[in-house]
């Protein structure tokens, strides 16, 4: 767990689009740090678009849902377009359960791969 807490946020900036690649487990324990890191990056960089790429997330529960909905709310507040990309089938089920797609664009650029 320490390695995940210490690892920096992996991002790619292309033009005014900031893509954040999340990985590992997103639960209540890890969500707070991930949230702070994303928000700091967004405040410094002020992109026009923020994309959360979930292709490498192995596990996510309702805390991850809170993280995604919270980042969406922040993006709306700052006038930033927001998208979620490449959720695994397991994560997709959680997103669908909460009706996330009514608010947030979910994109799967390539078929989501299982983590195992």
């Amino acid at each position, binding site marked *: *767990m320490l390695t995940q807490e210490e690892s920096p946020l992996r991002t790619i900036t292309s033009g005014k689009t900031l893509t954040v690649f999340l990985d590992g*487990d997103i*639960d*209540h*324990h890890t*969500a707070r740090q991930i*949230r702070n890191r994303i928000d700091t990056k967004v405040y410094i960089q002020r992109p026009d678009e923020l994309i959360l790429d979930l292709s490498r997330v192995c*596990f*996510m*529960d*309702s*805390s991850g*849902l*809170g*993280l995604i*909905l*919270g980042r969406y709310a922040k993006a709306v507040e700052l006038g930033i377009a927001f998208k979620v990309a490449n959720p695994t089938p*397991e994560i997709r089920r*959680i997103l669908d*359960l*909460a009706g996330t797609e009514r608010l947030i664009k979910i994109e799967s650029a390539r078929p989501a791969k*299982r983590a*195992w």
Partner: protein
Amino acid sequence: MAKPKPVNELKCIFPSWSQNEALARSVTASFTAQMNPTCEEVSDIKCAVSEAVTNAIVHGYRGTVGEIQMILKLYADRTFQAEVRDRGVGIRDVEEAMRPLFTTDPENERSGMGFTIIENFMDSLRVLSEPGKGTRVIMKKKLSMLPIAK
């Protein structure tokens, strides 16, 4: 009818520190492995247990640290049961707490979907709670049968 006896059982007690959410998930996944569940079943069970343990940490013991007890059972008919107990503040209105999107803690970005996820990912969910005494969350899921070898 006598209550069926579990074929295997595991009890563990840990403090309500958030790093134990991952621990509870891995213990649960290891415990279910003996029944050869599908990846999807393991993923569902891990998520449900994670929700219950997070609830105990975030709500049951909000602002304090207490003991969480997790009891896992497996029955001969391939039913898996997990019980997560805390002796925290308890829930005044269980029905309200179980409503989708209901949360008492929106400022910390709690989505209010915990119980909804458990209900959807498991076959049954029972929540027993008494204000001031604590909460017991009991969930069950019947694992699919193994394919018969030819």
